[in-house]
């Protein structure tokens, strides 16, 4: 049960009661708990209530976000970290390093950590060297950029750009590891979907 997070709906029912609507007794308990508890869980014979968080940080778009600490923190110290609405592990916010980024399997979490570091700083830090670039089919004005990694002869990194802009007009970038057997950016992009490069070249529209 959402507790205080249901304040809008709980207030709506309270207002109805205040103007004389009857039959709302069933929400009495939920309303009382909503005043004192955050999310809570009811089980047979036992209920788990949580306290309200001490703080909540958001970006201007209203998404959970804090560049310097927890996005939400509860009085006992339990916290969650978030980057523009994407929930991330603590290290992404407090200590994003190239080593941790390389060890992270989730491409979205890597993107958040690299954005926090800054793409330019990250590219310098890991020593990415551009070897080839071409237009991204179906993604006007964007390129596919293939890079080598200094300490890993088996892997190349393909930098790609989202087909859809963000709220502020910028586009998300992603670094995708591909095998060094890929000889061109187009081959590398096709490899990520396991299709023929000639088919990838036919892409007319990316969103």
């Amino acid at each position, binding site marked *: 049960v959402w507790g205080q997070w249901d304040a809008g709906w709980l207030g709506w029912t309270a207002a109805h009661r205040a103007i004389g609507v009857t039959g709302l007794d069933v929400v009495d308990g939920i309303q009382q708990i909503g005043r004192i508890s955050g999310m809570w869980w009811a089980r047979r014979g036992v209920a788990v209530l949580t306290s309200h968080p001490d703080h909540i940080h958001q970006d201007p778009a209203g998404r959970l976000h804090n560049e310097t600490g927890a996005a939400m923190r509860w009085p006992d110290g339990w916290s969650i970290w978030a980057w523009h609405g994407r929930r991330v592990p603590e290290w992404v916010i407090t200590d994003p390093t190239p080593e941790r980024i390389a060890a992270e399997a989730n491409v979205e979490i890597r993107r958040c950590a690299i954005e926090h570091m800054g793409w330019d700083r990250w590219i310098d830090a890991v020593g990415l060297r551009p070897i080839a670039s071409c237009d991204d089919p*179906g993604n006007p004005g964007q390129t596919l950029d293939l890079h080598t990694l200094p300490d890993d002869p088996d892997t190349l990194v393909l930098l790609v750009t*989202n087909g859809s*802009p963000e*709220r502020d007009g910028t586009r998300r970038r992603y670094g995708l590891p591909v095998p060094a057997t890929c000889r061109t950016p187009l081959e590398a992009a096709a490899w990520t979907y396991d*299709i023929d490069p000639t088919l990838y070249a036919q892409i007319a529209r990316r969103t």
Partner: protein
Amino acid sequence: MTMTLTDIETLAGRECYGHVRELLADVEVPVLGGPQPQGDLLAVPTDRHHDDSAVDVPRAGVDIIEAVNGGHAHTLIAPDGGATVQVRRPTEADDLVLAVIECTRPVYLLHAEHGATGLAAGRWEIRGQREFDAAEARRVAD
């Protein structure tokens, strides 16, 4: 029948982000017969048929890729019916085909951050994207 993003959102009963709607709300969504990526998915024409687990695609759509990690679902919508989809759960790392679609009318893929993608009548594979893991590749090769 041509469809705008707003038409498709109305059918699906869900809306894209405001900044996506600002750009695209009243623009006709192109229906194409070639490969089209949407985010990290790629729709590609295929010769493959789906199996017996395929289901009809409702006009209001069905999520073929669920929302995970605070992300968003990819929803498949068949405004004129005539479409079936097999949703797959591949277990092998190099099996990237997440869904197989057969349609006699255009279908649309909708995503909150990417808007709508129109797929012409035919057979389609929806492929996920993979990444290379040198350590894993070396392990497999050993």
